[in-house]
């Protein structure tokens, strides 16, 4: 239940994130002047928090998407398995997102 609504919520978040990605690519193509404000927003504390949330949303949606692909095979559909894999998707997504965000921050700090 929680994983199902979270799948949709993260999907909507990724939709917005893809719009931001398109703006970022467009600004990069336009040149350094156009890129500056976009880069400044993304590297601000609020931008960094939004990007971290985007990373988690992408990873959760991917892991929970794997659950859907597994169900499409007609497997893992009983309540006990569904609950276990939902918990695994939440736990693994938080863990991996944390690793990626820390790796990014360490890389940024040089």
């Amino acid at each position, binding site marked *: 239940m929680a994983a199902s609504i979270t799948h949709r919520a993260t999907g909507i978040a990724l*939709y917005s994130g893809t*719009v931001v*990605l*398109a703006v970022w*690519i467009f600004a990069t*193509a336009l040149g*350094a002047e156009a890129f500056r404000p976009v880069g400044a927003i993304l590297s601000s504390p609020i931008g960094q928090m939004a990007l971290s949330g985007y990373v988690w949303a992408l990873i959760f949606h991917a892991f929970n998407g794997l659950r859907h*692909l597994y169900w499409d095979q007609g497997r893992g559909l009983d309540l006990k398995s569904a609950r276990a894999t939902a918990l695994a998707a939440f736990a693994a997504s938080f863990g991996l997102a944390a690793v990626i965000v820390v790796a990014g921050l360490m890389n*940024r700090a040089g």
Partner: protein
Amino acid sequence: MTHKGTATFIAQRTSAVILLPLAIWFLAGAVAHTGSTYEEVRAWLATPLNAGLMGALILTGAFHMRIGVNEIVDDYAPASSRGLWKLLNLLAAAGVAGISIYSLVVLAA
């Protein structure tokens, strides 16, 4: 999802599978470019391989997210406004894809 249900189902799953490796590439690239200068970002995106992978990510992502949001519209929007929401969804997805592909072509050219 009323008359083209099976085709939509397959398109959603196929695009999901294509997006998995592209998402891994994207996250690796994002981590590698935290703190990069404009020139470094531009040089990275301008190589044919990275521009191609980014284009594939955006196109497949736009395709996939349009299907997902149409599904949400079917579930929550009143029947009278579904057509309008789906049109807006199509325009947004196509806009994201169009602006990105144009930009990537400019960058890689």
